[in-house]
């Protein structure tokens, strides 16, 4: 409080904080409360205790599918994103790499384009009959490698989940590369020089020096991309046309459908489940990465 002033900081902070209270904090409290009610938006909400949670766990197979798909999404995309982004950042940092800036620009490009547009364009590329991918595979006779041709890249099959994971990584990779580039440029030269005395090659310098040194950024990237995969909606909605399918539904598409069907209490319940999962995953990752940092040092 170095600046002595007559006007309180509240004069500046009141309105912005009010926006957060009104549109985030209070709706969260009301949403958690609503998860214990049955409500279609019209009449008075009907208190039913934990009935929504029971229904979610016991009587909603589509919720279980979408939960499974969301978790697969996270487990598949987070490690791939982290490793690929780190490796790319190291390559783009190397003095001998040709075309750094151009490659960085290209790799970052998908991140600035709306996910909806990206899903749309990929849908065309992956179209089973006239899409670029299948036509390309046919032109090199690779279609014989697949039992069911044409492969329904976006139909209701595990393929579709894999395809969407791929596009998700494809879109977010550039952002993580840029984060790692920033982290790598803050690693002090002396660390490498010290290792250089021991004759470490660039492979060892990468994994023994750079990788541990950017651990705080790894923590950030892991948490951010985990949250992204829990929040995935746009991509799935556009790539599947919003179809309700066991292999393509994720928590948010299921939630949206319940909302659109005016089952508001049940939608709130799914929201609370997402909140719980987010909290558990974030805390677990913080603990795990902090713990392993201490063990390493």
């Amino acid at each position, binding site marked *: 409080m*170095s600046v002595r002033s007559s*006007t*309180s*900081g509240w*004069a*500046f902070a009141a*309105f*912005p904080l009010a*926006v*957060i209270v009104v*549109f*985030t*904090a209070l*709706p*969260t409290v009301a949403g958690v409360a609503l998860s214990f009610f049955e409500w279609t938006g019209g009449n008075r909400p009907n208190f039913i205790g934990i009935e929504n949670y029971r229904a979610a766990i016991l009587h909603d197979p589509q919720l279980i599918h979408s939960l499974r798909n969301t978790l697969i999404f996270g487990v598949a995309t987070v490690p791939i994103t982290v490793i690929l982004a780190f490796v790319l950042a190291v*390559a*783009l940092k*190397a003095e*001998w790499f040709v*075309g750094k800036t151009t*490659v960085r*620009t*290209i*790799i970052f490009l998908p991140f*600035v*384009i*709306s996910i*909806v*547009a990206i899903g*749309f*364009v990929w849908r065309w*590329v992956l179209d089973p*009959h006239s899409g670029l991918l299948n036509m*390309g595979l046919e032109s090199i006779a690779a279609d014989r490698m697949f039992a069911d041709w044409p492969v329904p890249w976006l139909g209701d099959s595990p393929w579709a989940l894999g395809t969407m994971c791929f596009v998700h990584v494809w879109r977010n990779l550039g*952002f993580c590369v840029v*984060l790692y580039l*920033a982290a790598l440029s803050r690693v002090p030269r002396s660390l*490498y*020089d010290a*290792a250089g005395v021991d*004759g*470490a090659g*660039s492979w060892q*310098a990468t994994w023994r*020096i750079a990788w541990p040194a950017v651990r705080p950024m790894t923590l950030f*990237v892991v948490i951010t991309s985990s949250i992204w995969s829990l929040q995935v*909606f746009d991509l799935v*909605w*556009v790539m599947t046309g919003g179809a309700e399918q066991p292999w393509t539904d994720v928590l948010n598409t299921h*939630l*949206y459908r319940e*909302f659109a069907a005016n089952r508001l209490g049940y*939608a*709130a319940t799914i*929201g*609370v489940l*997402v*909140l719980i999962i*987010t*909290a558990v995953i974030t805390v677990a990752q913080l603990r795990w990465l902090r713990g392993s940092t201490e063990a390493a040092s």
Partner: protein
Amino acid sequence: MSAWSKPAWPIRAAVHAFVYILAATMLVPFAWMCSTSLKTDAEAIDVQQLALLPAGSVSDWKWGNYVEAWRLAELGDVYLNSLIVAVVVTVLSVLHNALAGFAFAKLRMTAKRSVFIAMLLTMMLPYQVYFLFAYILCGWLGYVDHLHALIVPFLASAFGIFYMRQSIITVSDGLLDAGRVDGLTNFELFWHVVLPSIKPAVGALAIFTFMASWNNFFWPLIVIDSQENFTLPLSVAALSSGLYVQSWPVQMAAATLITLPTIVVFIIFQRIFVQGLALTGMKG
């Protein structure tokens, strides 16, 4: 330097090949989008041959697809809606966040610490748990199916306030005290001393906010119903579900019209983009 000693050439070649292939993967869908957008319907779905370029010379290409896409999806109105929302949200929320960040960083405030911590906690909340009542609230306020609903809830953000506070706290107190001696009010201090010294952070936050608003899909899908109030992502989703037209070339022409401006803007401002986002990650 020896740590970064050049690996043998086969390794360097392999690394280059790997990275270039990845980079090509980033471009191919967009190239295919542009190529399709200039084909006839028959050409686009011709499974007999994979044509990378539309048939004929440049003047034979179906440029008319663009005219049709623009007209059918009413892209002029959609662009205007998106632009109004994103610009208003960016300008006002950056201003509000910076003001609140200034208060948290440098001003006297009752219960400052506990309010700040409470605010940080709201950052962890997923939108899935609060969008319901935010929607109901917008209904009470008469905002549903109106651009207001896309602006008012975004006039400030916990992340923005946190980010501004972290930047403003590095502004030297001596500078502020000097301003105070000159008789500047708190707002004048903010405007003439604080803002100019945190320009890069303001730029980063502005870009971040603009992108989030421009690309937001879930919330507009919830609160906007009529086509006249569509923003770009809603319009794209409607296109991709075949609402306006079934022709792939026309759809891809629309997709090109939608993505191209973003690509151009990004390439022009990419330094600020990349540095800004790197800065964001650093603080986070």
